[in-house]
């Protein structure tokens, strides 16, 4: 805990941390898209260069990164719907916490469907 000049971290609750997570996932998705647009546009430069770059992605580390990316997108998407409900549904503000647990539940379910297949592709032989 820092003594000076910064004080303690504000102990916000679910609402604050979901906002932080929404920001963090949003920014990471943005940077992914930036890189993604760049590497995809390589195909117009030369197919060989494209293949070379895409080839460097076929590593376990990148595979885990992809899993993280999918988790970030899924969270950002579901939480975005939660925020829209908080904005436009008159009872949304009252149920924001419940809705966050629903978002996290849906995230777990989606990842449970996606991860086994994905990890088999990344680590499994063929």
């Amino acid at each position, binding site marked *: 805990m820092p*003594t*000076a*000049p910064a*004080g*303690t*971290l*504000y*102990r*916000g*609750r*679910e*609402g*604050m941390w979901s*906002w932080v997570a929404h920001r963090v996932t949003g920014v990471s998705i943005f940077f992914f898209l930036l890189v993604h647009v760049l590497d995809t546009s390589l195909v117009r430069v030369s197919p060989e260069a494209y293949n070379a770059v895409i080839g460097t992605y076929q590593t376990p580390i990148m595979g885990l990164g992809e899993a993280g990316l999918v988790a970030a997108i899924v969270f950002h998407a579901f939480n975005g719907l939660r*925020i829209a409900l*908080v*904005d*436009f549904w*008159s009872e*949304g*503000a*009252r149920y*924001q916490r419940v809705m966050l647990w629903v978002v996290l539940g849906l995230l777990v379910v989606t990842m449970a469907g996606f991860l086994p297949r994905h990890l088999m592709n990344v680590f499994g032989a063929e």
Partner: protein
Amino acid sequence: MTAVLENSTDTSGSESQAGAVSSFQVTLKIRRYNPEVASEPYWEEHTVTAHGTDRVLDALHKIKWELDGSLTFRRSCAHGVCGSDAMRINGRNRLACKTLLKDINPDKPITVEAIKGLPVLKDLVVDMEPFFASYREIMPFLITSGNEPSRENIQSQADRDRFDDTTKCILCAACTSSCPVFWTDGQYFGPAAIVNAHRFIFDSRDQGGTQRLEVLNDKEGVWRCRTTFNCTEACPRGIEVTKAIQEVKRAMITRAF
């Protein structure tokens, strides 16, 4: 009052008598700041004896009155009415006079800091002027036009209930200074100003709704709100602050058409 209780414990001769108030030691870790002495804030700890019925404010009083008279904080009513003593206790904004020590785990040192986002003047005292400036901007008074009324301005119960929640504000700034948007952008009107605008916008007797919505339609107005709900959690009056802000946002959209 304490003296009477202590006497009754003495005469009964047993600590565990019903009605006896047990005492315990509590440490307060206070963030001190005095620009006349040092340019940096620092943490200071004091341990005092407290009772189960004591609030954080009582512990602060004990420190100020018995240990260190230089400790500076605001309080007036000491009963949750005036809104003077909002401070950050164990990392969350609360009123020191409404927070019982026993409710916030007195076994560990309790941290006490000034509220965030407003300039600290000394110890726990902040400059509230930016906060009140935003409050004044939303015109917190009844606006009507036409002839001076000759009889009461009657309102139905349902119309009164529409804005009941936001009439409870005591302008303590716990909400505004819990808002991450306000910390980084001091120009943002902040939850308290919007709560008090809500109190008039949804009052059927008021005719200044359009003007108030115009003020809050600013770049630094309601649209800055990111619904982190820190304000709602912090409000010592239990006002559903974020809900009120969302209602103002929606009024801005629906009344525009």
